[in-house]
Every structure is written in structure tokens, then in C-alpha cells.
């Protein structure tokens, strides 16, 4: 046991020392140009620079039940994708991995994995069986370079034998590995993405797993609902909805499976945002005759206006680290720009220096804002709307998407390593994810009618 602990500690300290080194390097290079921009984003978003080389073996089928093979396929694919998506591993591709299915610690020969061409530092492997309608998975994580005591993790999972269960087990085991090898930061394989589904005129709120699987519609209101924001404890979903009297904030209880009361003020009320303690909401309301930012408690009581400037003020988001600051979008000087202020409205500071900037999302560690920016917006201007990340302290920014559609509504994953966003092209809108340094962009939906994603807090 103590050896296992030491192993994981060694891994962690290795990661930390790399990060520290990079931070020092950046400090010494500060101001020397944008070519290093990707590095500071990587470091700040826990992505590290040197990735652990990890092999995920095909799991060994241990039963002859006819469900075994299909469930194993679901499990293997989900498990590999989760580890690959995590952003902290250099995955051994399936063609490079030894064609072996070690089903237990006795059956694995680590030297076969640590040797070329796989060159794995770590190996995840195990066994999957189905009997009497139950699926059972044994999973291990071994350090391929530590022949003496290679085991880092050993886990067992049992659930009903369904494809959903097979995916959930894969997510849970992947998250264990990611947490253990990723500096103790929880993986995101069990998180959800809330979003708007449907086209012009009829839009509902839907949810899916972080990898785009298991999508389902939550609301059935038959109107236009936008801006879903899940509460930090996953219990309540706030969103804006168009009713006969205009836009109001509505609340859906995920626990009760129905709409619950929210005291939305009169007038157009839009873009709710939860504080990270779940105690407060910020939103935009034109109760006063002009759209302004307000805060309230979680049921809409104790409303407090915190901006007072003519023009659109919308899309607030709390600093999740402190809940003492709010970033939002204001059109007070013309085209919309990103601003931050204290949560009581003091210390207003403009962050963007022009163009058309909207849809801020605050990174979980409080350090960055992701937002959509068209830096050359205007009639006839060939600007593209792309996702950017800004370091709030230094105002340095980096562009994450390039020359691919119109990108909007970035939302950070809880581990701070990923961003989900909306990409529109040719009139179709789909959800995409990427690592927080802009790499590994991949489409989550392909139906052309998904927008405004919001990543759950856990």
C-alpha cells in the first residue's frame, strides 16, 4: 500500500515539477511574444506539457453470455475515448498496443507494454463479464516502469447489464485513473452538458453526457428556451424562456423532474448564472427600462441591481473561485465588450479592447475567461467569431479556434482542461469540445440544431 502511494506521489510530483519549471520559463520569457501563449494556457489549465504515455488494453471477456461482446465493445470504446479526451495522456494507439487482453495482474507481462512500439509508462487493463443480467468489470492500472510493485489502482464495478451501465462503468474507472495520474483533479467522464436543442421558433433544454452520448430533452414547453445553467449541485436548472409576457427566468428541478417556482422580475429577464456555492444567481433584467445586471438568492428573492449604465448589459458569470467578482457583456460604449466588476458593482474594468466580444465563461480556477470574440466585426468586415481565452490578471489572450464557422458560448469543464462551445456553419449549429489550449477539437453533436452548451460543475 505504501508503495502504491509512493508511486502515485512520484507521478504527481513529476507533474508539479514540470509545471513549476514551465511557469519559471514563462516568467523569464514574459513579454517576448505570443508564440509562447499556448504554453501559459496549457500550464494554467492543468494540461501540463509532458503527457504520460498510457496504454488501455482491450478488456478480456470472461463469460459467454451473448451480451458480453456488445457490452465489451461499448466499454472498451468509451474507456479509451475517456482517457484520450482527458488531455493529460499520450495514448498508445490501438495499432501500436500489443494484441493482448490481460484479464488480471497474473496475466500481464509489463515488459511487452513498456517495450517499443507501445513504449507505455502506464497500462490500464482488466476483465468484463456478464451473468444473470449483471455486468461485472475488474480494472487495474499498472506502472509499466515499476516491475517490483506496479499496481496503482485495482477496482471492481457491478451494475445491470445495459449499454448505459457499461458506459457509466467505463466513465467511472477512467475518472479514477485521471484523478490518480492528473494531480488529484477529478476527471470529467461522469459530467453532463446542458444545451439548447431545436431550431428557430421552438427551442427546448436538453442534456447529454460529456462525450455526446445519452442525449435527452428536459423541457417540453413548446416555446423558445435559452441559456441553460445547471446549479453546482446538479439539482436545479435555470434558463430563460419566452412566455406570453416576454422573457423570464424559469427553474426546473432535476430531482423532482418538473418546473419549480422562481420569482422572476417583470420585464425581459435573461441569462441566469449560478454562484459556485449555489446560493446566488446573477442575471440581466430590464425591470428598470434598460437591461442591467442583478443578483438575487436562488429563488429570485433579495434582488439587487449592480449595474446602472444605458445600453445592453447581459450574460453575467461569477468568478467561481471567490464569488466576489462578476464578468459580463456590456454595450455601453457601442459594440459589446467583456467587463469584470466586484459582485456589488464596484471596480468596473473593461477587458476587451474592441471588436464584438460576448459570452464569457469563467474558468474553475478563477484565472481565465473564455469568451467569443469577433475582432473585426462590422458591416462588410470579414471577421470570424472565435473562442478566446484571456488571463484576467495580465489581460493576455490566446485564440483557440481559427477559420472554422462562427463559434460562441464557450463553457469550461469542471477540471479546467476542456471547453465546450457552439460552432455554426452553413446555418447549422453543433456542439464541439476542445482542450483549453484549443487542441483536440471534436464535434459532440451532428444534428445541426444544438446550441448554448453549459458544462455541469461536477
Amino acid at each position, binding site marked *: 500500500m505504501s508503495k502504491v502511494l509512493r508511486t502515485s506521489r512520484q507521478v504527481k510530483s513529476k507533474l508539479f515539477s514540470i509545471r513549476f519549471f514551465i511557469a519559471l520559463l514563462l516568467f523569464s520569457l514574459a513579454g517576448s511574444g505570443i508564440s509562447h501563449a499556448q504554453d501559459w494556457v496549457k500550464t494554467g489549465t492543468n494540461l501540463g506539457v509532458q503527457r504520460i504515455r498510457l496504454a488501455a488494453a482491450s478488456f478480456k471477456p470472461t463469460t459467454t453470455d451473448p451480451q458480453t461482446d456488445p457490452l465489451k465493445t461499448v466499454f472498451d470504446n468509451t474507456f479509451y475515448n475517456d482517457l484520450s479526451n482527458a488531455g493529460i495522456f499520450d495514448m498508445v494507439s490501438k495499432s501500436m498496443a500489443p494484441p493482448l487482453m490481460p484479464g488480471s495482474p497474473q496475466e500481464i507481462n509489463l515488459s511487452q507494454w513498456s517495450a517499443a512500439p507501445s513504449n507505455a509508462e502506464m497500462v490500464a487493463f482488466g476483465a468484463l463479464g456478464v451473468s444473470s443480467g449483471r455486468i461485472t468489470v475488474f480494472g487495474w492500472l499498472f506502472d509499466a516502469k515499476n516491475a517490483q510493485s506496479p499496481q496503482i489502482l485495482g477496482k471492481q464495478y457491478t451494475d445491470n447489464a445495459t449499454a448505459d451501465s457499461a458506459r457509466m462503468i467505463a466513465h467511472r474507472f477512467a475518472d479514477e485513473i485521471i484523478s490518480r495520474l492528473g494531480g488529484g483533479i477529478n476527471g470529467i467522464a461522469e459530467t453532463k452538458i446542458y444545451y439548447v436543442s431545436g431550431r428557430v421558433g421552438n427551442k427546448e433544454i436538453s442534456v447529454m453526457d460529456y462525450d455526446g452520448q445519452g442525449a435527452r430533452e428536459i423541457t417540453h414547453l413548446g416555446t423558445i428556451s*435559452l441559456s441553460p445553467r445547471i446549479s453546482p449541485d446538479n439539482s436545479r436548472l435555470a434558463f430563460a424562456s419566452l412566455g406570453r409576457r416576454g422573457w423570464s427566468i424559469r427553474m426546473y428541478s432535476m430531482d423532482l423532474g418538473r418546473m419549480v417556482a422562481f420569482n422572476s422580475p417583470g420585464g425581459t429577464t435573461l441569462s441566469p448564472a449560478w454562484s459556485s456555492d449555489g446560493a446566488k444567481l446573477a442575471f440581466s433584467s*430590464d425591470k428598470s427600462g434598460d437591461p442591467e445586471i442583478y443578483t438575487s438568492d436562488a429563488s429570485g428573492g433579495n434582488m439587487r441591481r449592480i449595474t446602472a449604465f444605458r445600453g445592453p448589459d447581459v450574460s453575467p458569470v461569477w468568478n467561481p473561485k471567490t464569488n466576489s467578482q462578476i464578468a459580463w457583456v456590456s454595450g455601453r460604449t457601442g459594440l459589446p465588450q467583456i467587463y469584470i466588476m466586484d459582485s456589488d458593482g464596484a471596480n468596473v474594468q473593461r477587458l476587451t479592447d474592441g471588436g464584438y466580444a460576448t459570452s464569457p465563461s469563467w474558468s474553475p480556477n478563477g484565472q481565465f475567461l473564455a469568451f467569443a470574440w469577433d475582432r473585426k466585426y462590422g458591416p462588410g468586415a470579414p471577421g470570424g467569431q472565435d473562442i478566446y481565452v484571456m488571463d484576467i490578471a495580465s489581460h493576455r489572450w490566446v485564440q483557440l479556434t481559427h477559420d472554422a464557422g462562427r463559434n460562441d458560448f464557450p463553457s469550461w469543464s469542471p477540471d479546467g482542461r476542456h471547453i465546450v462551445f457552439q460552432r455554426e456553419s452553413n446555418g447549422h449549429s453543433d456542439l464541439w469540445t476542445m482542450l483549453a489550449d484549443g487542441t483536440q477539437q471534436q464535434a459532440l453533436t451532428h444534428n445541426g440544431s444544438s446550441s448554448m452548451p453549459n458544462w455541469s460543475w461536477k
Partner: protein
Amino acid sequence: MQRLNRKIFVSTLSVVALLTVAGCHKKQAAPPPPPPPTVTAPTPTAEITVTPNTINAGDSAVLTWKTTGANDVSIEGMGQVATSGTQNVKPTESTSYHLVARGDGGSTDATARITVNAAPPATNNLNENNVDDATFHQNVKDVFYDYDSYDITGDGQSTIQQDAAFLKAHPQLKVVIGGYCDERGSTEYNLALGENRANAAKQALVNAGVDASQLRTVSYGKEKQFCTEHNESCWQQNRRAQFSVDR
């Protein structure tokens, strides 16, 4: 025959009840003292007016009549009525209201005519205070905005003046102002901008003398595009405050 009598009786009763509740012309409504049986009784007089005398289909008008020396007053199509009174009418076509006042001194008649402008086909059910959509949109034009702006332009100002004139002439009309944006830009920001546009139009109408209680605003941002092509002329059509009857 009996049923018809009952109908007349009921409608008379309801008119009397209406007048009593309204408290109008109580003195005239009181039964005149029994006239002496003499042949020198004066000839009744009768007046009837309808205001306004021209309406659009679906609108209502007020019918007012007054008689003297009569004890049996009826209006064609309405049956027996009080000797004096007022009533809201809502004719669907041009109508002559023919009043006959009979008294001991003979009978007199009077006529008021109302012209009803034909309703355009396929209008919604209109309630008494509403103007039909075609008339409304003929008289109340949308206001267009510059790119990413919610300021009323010079053109917009003159549109607002004309719109305000119509709305002031129809103070019972309730109006929704929808704020719209073109397809570019971001959904949430466009909803806030659309609200600013609707509010700017509302404020301009109020400044031009329209009662604020007639007006309410809804932002549609870019959620309900009027024009769906991707060019400036189409975007310009979408950047607007659109007025419609609040039903």
C-alpha cells in the same frame, strides 16, 4: 309570435336595466303623466345620431337618441327602446338606424346612418376595442435601426410621429413592440439589444404623447427572423421595432 314578443320584452327590459344602471336621463325615462284625452297633443319630436358615423369593421360606435311627446319608441332592428338613450353598436356593414317615435300627437321618425368600411378578408376575431391588422399596419409602421444601434434615426423619428398620431386617436388600442436584431452577433446579447430597441421605440412614442399603458415590449433578438437571407438588405429589415396589436 309569442316568442318574438318575449324577445322584445327581454331586450327592452335589458335596455331599461342598462339605463337604470347607467343612471342616464332618469328624468326623461320616467313615465310621462297620463296625457289628457285631447286631440291637441303635440306631435312627438325625435333625434338620433351615431358617433362616429364612419367606422372600420369590428369597431363600435355609440348610438344616441332623444324624443319628446312619445310613449312608444322603437328602432328598426332593435325593437322597442326607451324614449331617450344611448347604446353601443357594432354593425358589420353600413346600416341605417331608423327610429319611430309614436305619441298621442302622431308619430315622427328620424334616421342615423353609419358607414362601415369593409374588413379585409381573414382577420382574427376582434374584440370591441381592436382595430384589424391591415388597418393597424397601414397606419403604424415599423421602425428600423442602424447596425448594432438602438437609437431612433431621423427616418425613424418621422415614422414614430405618424405611429403616435394613430395610437393617440385610438387610445383604447393596446400595442406590443417587438425588438428584433439581424442574424449576426450573439444570441444573448441580441436579446438585450432587441429589448433596448423595443424600449427606445416605446420611449419615443411616449415622448410623442402616447399613453405608456397602451404599450408593452418583448425582445425577440434574432430568434424570430423576418428575413432569412444573409445580406445587408435583409439584415436591415430584421433590425427593427415591430408594432402589432396586443391581443
